């Protein structure tokens, strides 16, 4: 069995994210990191492998600029055997539809038995890439999975949907996005971090994987950001720093009392 994990490089959580007013795209300067939600996908792949299913290979796959190689190195340090980098100036500014299409094209070349993704990208927060990729690959899919058991060529998955918890059986090959409650990702060992750069990394341009140029990039996207503006200002709440807890509690009680809540 071959597992591909989709991973993305995102701005570090501590960096304030801003939009470049010129291009209306996310300003990608500053510290970056592997999307924390994707570490759960890699961990899930490792657990399938360690659980006894015959996993030959775990491949980390990303689409992004040159710097995205660092996210691949982190993914390899967490357990992936090798990685694939789809990178091309023509892909810049791709929206969800275009990104999903491009990722499906690069995955087609790998023909995995299982594609795992994170529940959301920390910057884009679209929650949708998995289901877009799945339909292009003509594979069954499920998102937000918090329990996944692999046996006999199929997965038994659990996830929370609108009416409670659903249990779903999915035949392989399949595309599964995992929720962050599925596991507790391990920390990479120092040795794994040091060795990550030596693992094989294939780089592909859009043409190498048969991507039609008019379906990607800003020009190939089906949506366009017309305008950006700040949300209506809500009156900022009062903030108390807890230094002396007795005093803090007193202030909270006064606040509650003033509003007739106690």
């Amino acid at each position, binding site marked *: 069995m071959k597992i591909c994990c989709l991973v993305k490089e995102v701005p570090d959580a501590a960096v304030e994210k801003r939009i470049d007013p010129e291009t209306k795209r996310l300003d990608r300067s500053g510290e970056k990191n592997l999307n924390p939600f994707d570490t759960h996908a890699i961990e899930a792949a490792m657990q399938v492998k360690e659980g006894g299913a015959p996993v030959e290979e775990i491949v980390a796959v990303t689409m992004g600029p040159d710097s995205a190689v660092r996210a691949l190195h982190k993914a390899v340090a967490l357990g992936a055997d090798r990685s694939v980098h789809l990178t091309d100036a023509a892909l810049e500014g791709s929206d969800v539809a275009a990104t999903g299409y491009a990722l499906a094209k690069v995955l087609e070349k790998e023909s995995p038995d299982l594609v795992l993704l994170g529940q959301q990208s920390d910057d884009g927060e679209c929650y949708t890439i998995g289901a877009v*990729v799945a339909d292009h690959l003509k*594979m069954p899919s499920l998102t937000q999975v918090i329990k996944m058991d692999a046996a006999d060529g199929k997965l038994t998955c659990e996830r*929370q949907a609108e009416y409670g918890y659903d249990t779903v059986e*999915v035949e392989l090959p399949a595309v599964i996005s995992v929720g962050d409650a599925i596991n507790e990702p391990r920390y990479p060992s120092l040795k794994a971090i040091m060795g990550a750069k030596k693992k094989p990394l294939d780089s592909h341009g859009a043409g190498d994987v048969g991507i039609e140029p008019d379906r990607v990039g800003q020009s190939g996207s*089906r949506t366009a950001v017309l305008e950006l*503006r700040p949300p209506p200002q809500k009156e900022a709440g009062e903030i*108390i720093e807890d230094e002396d807890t007795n005093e803090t509690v007193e202030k909270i009680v006064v606040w509650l009392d003033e*509003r007739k809540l106690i």
Partner: protein
Amino acid sequence: MAGILVYALHDDEGNFNKNSLGALSEAAKLAGELGSEASAIIVGDVSDDAAKGLGAYGVKKVYRAKDVPEGLAQPIVDAMAKVMTDNDISYALFGGGLLGFEIGAGLTARLNAGVTMEVTAVRAEDGRLVVERPILQDSQIADVGYVAEPGIIIGRLNAFDENETGGEAEVEDVAVELSEWSSKAKLVKRGEQRGEDVNIEDAEILVGGGRGLGQAENFKMAEELASSMGGAVAATRAVVDAGWYPYAAQIGQTGKTVAPKLYLAAGISGAIQHKVGMQNSENILAINKDQNAPIFEFCDLGVVGDLHKIVPKLTDAIKAKKGG
């Protein structure tokens, strides 16, 4: 024709989802502005009366795919792609919810469409729809347009209000051939309730507990605080998924929507999917040790500190005040 098709989700008893009904009303309004029609699609065994009844929300027509199962996305993608193509429908609209995200995403690939998600408002402009989508944890609002049709719009929970105007819809049964991969996922169990049944909707005071509580046992602390104020305890998905608290107490996108007089969030980061279920509370008080937690952006009183130190003392102080 530039019609709008809305997926109306229902549970196993045939009750339609409130957010789907809101989307129907929204579609009817937008179709009026576009000079076209709104229709609904339902799958599974829905009675004639229930189907016709969707007309009350302003849709003229209801497509019913009886043989398509409810509850998983891909068979519904097959049904919607067929109805949109056969009837030349330009937009698909979804109320907030998990299935809408999955169906909308699948349709995007199938129809080579544009997609927007977490949409809070939609308007017609020059014969096309334009949506508002908050991004970067609601710090910016983007107006997004579609370069070409079809366009897929996935709403945020509670973004669209139901508006019952009366009337009956015409029902058309459609036969849908499922694509091969759509039949490769099977719903074994749907809507399992985990944990006991608790009532949080009627409480005027709610203490919400999140991952910051640290472990299941610490929900006791939240329960004691809630009972000192005569309230109940609610929870985030993170802790419900972890098995710390019952699903019936979950607030948010795949949980309940509440608007109590007081929502006291203890150890909750304030993720969008949680916020959508409690942002209309009259007063929001947050205790969180991370001053950058998103919840501090929309609470009325924010306390930056360790809840393990604050909550027990607060409980005692409230009890003392009430006693005295």
